[in-house]
């Protein structure tokens, strides 16, 4: 049960962690206020972009013109965000300018022009991903960082998937998610920025896991591993599960060490084994390991939003599994029954080996 604010402040003061009066709450930090501000900025950006698109025909004919205008808009956004640290008005203006700038640059890269000039999809995606990544780092606004991080990961995955490297982007995104969230209380200088980026990357992880698996071709022959070492084609169905499973294992072991468990402790071994089993679950039902990673990271730092995202994506993964064509419904049902039974067995085994978990009453007594 969470203590009331005054009681929490008193507890911190008694431990010497804070001094003086408890600060007055700020409404602007609540997620629903940010949602309202973000929605209004989007609507303002749509009207602005509509005006620019319909009016400035010169720009429409030139990729360079659109790119230049987009960059100017983003530069304006940066200036507004600097003022926006203390002013909602400037932060809003900055958001609208940033969305307009990103929209114009995307149009420049993905559109084709009167002279028939159109960039290949992979090239456009890569460039736009790079722009989004730069904007994520450079523009000092949480809402903007959240949106740009999502676009950066999604576009990078799109470009990589064309070259058969989608699994590597998925593994990298899972790793980045784990690194950011496991250290969110330690990188205190850039904490707010990292949190926004962490949410952006984490929220794209489940969709990425499903999309990467969806685009994989089936193995050519029963023994075909699906990737080669000489070439750069990493379209191995199991590689995605191994990479994300490895990240999950590393995260679980890190959390165990933080709980003070020794490397050879039985609990740590069991936790590691559980993470490996979750990775194996992912082999058939794509996205399970990514979702469980979010659940574990969310619970580890009391992040209800991340925890809810993980649980929702677990449900989405099971629903996606229903429509996956790689197995018949009968095979899927058998596989799910085995997996479900194994988890319940694991729970029983844990209770036998380590005893039942202490109840809330016991721990507060």
């Amino acid at each position, binding site marked *: 049960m*969470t*203590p009331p*604010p005054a009681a*929490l402040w008193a507890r*911190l003061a008694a431990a010497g*962690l*804070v001094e*003086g009066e408890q*600060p007055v709450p*700020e*409404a*602007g930090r*609540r997620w*629903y*206020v940010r*949602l*309202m*501000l973000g*929605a*209004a*900025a989007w*609507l*303002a950006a749509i*009207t*602005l972009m*509509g*005006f620019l698109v*319909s009016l400035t025909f010169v720009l429409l004919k030139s990729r360079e013109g659109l790119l230049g205008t987009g960059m100017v808009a983003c530069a304006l956004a940066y200036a507004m965000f600097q003022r926006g640290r203390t002013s*909602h008005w400037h932060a*809003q203006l900055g958001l609208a300018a940033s969305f307009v700038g990103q929209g114009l640059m995307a149009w420049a890269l993905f559109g084709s022009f009167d002279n028939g000039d159109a960039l290949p999809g992979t090239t456009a995606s890569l460039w736009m991903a790079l722009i989004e990544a730069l904007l994520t780092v450079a523009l000092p606004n949480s809402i903007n960082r959240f949106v740009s991080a999502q676009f950066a990961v999604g576009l990078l995955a799109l470009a990589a998937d064309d070259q058969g490297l989608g699994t590597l982007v998925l593994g990298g995104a899972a790793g980045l998610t784990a690194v950011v969230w496991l250290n969110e*209380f330690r990188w*205190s*200088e850039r*904490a707010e920025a990292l*949190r926004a980026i962490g949410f952006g990357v984490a929220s794209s992880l489940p969709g990425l896991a499903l999309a990467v698996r969806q685009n994989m071709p089936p193995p050519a022959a029963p023994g075909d591993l699906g990737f080669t070492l000489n070439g750069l084609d990493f379209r191995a169905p199991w590689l995605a599960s191994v990479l994300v499973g490895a990240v999950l294992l590393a995260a679980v072991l890190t959390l165990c060490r933080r*709980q003070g468990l020794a490397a050879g402790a039985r609990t740590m071994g069991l936790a590691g084994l559980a993470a490996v089993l979750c990775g194996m679950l992912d082999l058939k039902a794509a996205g399970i390991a990514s979702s469980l990673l979010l659940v574990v990271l969310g619970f580890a*730092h*009391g*992040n209800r939003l991340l925890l809810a995202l993980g649980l929702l994506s*677990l449900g989405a993964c099971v629903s996606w*599994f229903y429509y996956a064509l790689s197995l018949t*419904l*009968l095979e*899927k*049902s*058998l*596989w*799910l*029954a085995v997996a*479900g039974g194994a*988890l*319940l067995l*694991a*729970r029983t085994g*844990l209770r036998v080996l*380590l005893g039942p*978990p*202490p*109840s809330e009453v016991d*721990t507060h007594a």
Partner: protein
Amino acid sequence: MSDARNLLLEWAARGALSPAKLEAAMHLGGVVPDHARWRRFVDSLLLWLGAALLGAALVFFLAYNWDAMGRYLKFALAEGAIVLALGGVLWRGVDAPAGKALLFAASLFTGALLALVGQTYQTGADPWELFAVWALCILPWTLLSRLAAQWLLALGLLNLSVLLYYQTFLGFPLLGALFGPMAPCWVLLGLNGMALAVWELARLRGGDWLKPRWPLQLIGAAVMATATVLGLWAAIDAGRESLTEALGWAGCLALVYAVYRRRQRDLFMLAMAALSVVVVVNTWLGRQLVESFSDPRILLVSASFLASSTLAARWLQRVAHEAAP
């Protein structure tokens, strides 16, 4: 868990808590779980995930064999699931978390049974009737359950029933004559508004299960969404015929302000109302000023979006300051 976390993060961002001490504060505030909480979490996760996968396995198995099954076997399975769930409720008791979860499951299985009836017997019933009958069938369990999610399920079914009704019949005769094409919005606004009012009143007198704000905020968001649709209709139509919609929207806002600003301060509800004002007013402004995207006056509309949302955020900030202990 999450409230303490958000508080500590806010204090750290504002400099009241040193960044170097944030991690210690998170441990002290109970945000970072200890060994016991981790054990309980893993135990629960294995239980619920295992049960969910077994349940999904059953659904997949039934789907695979569905065409081959006879009518009686299908009904036996659907009804058997309800009986088993209710048996579990009797065994664990309706007050236990497992009992409430099983009662919720029985409510979901009822929908599956009704869908099976409709599919098997082809009675010619309309889709809205399925959801209305479903809500009616689970009403006794909803009354017994004392579970917010169960009540939200029943309300959700009623909402769906209304939407499908209007999709089928294009307006209830009396209300259609009075309120035109916005009749579904009016009905939904009345339904959800009444639910919100009754829940708030019950919360003042009721038990612990009524204390959390999130179900009320969910219903409040539905009320504001419906009111916003009415407001947008009035803003876009901007004629005498849409005066009722404009008054309805304004009336809804006035009520939300009176209740959630003066009586039971709820920043979430006020934020939803503020967003509604921003969207509707600026849509009206755009409708009055702008003829096409190439009209330079659209810049005024953009600026108005930004200015109004900024003002709204400042107002919410002031309200939050007043609410501080």
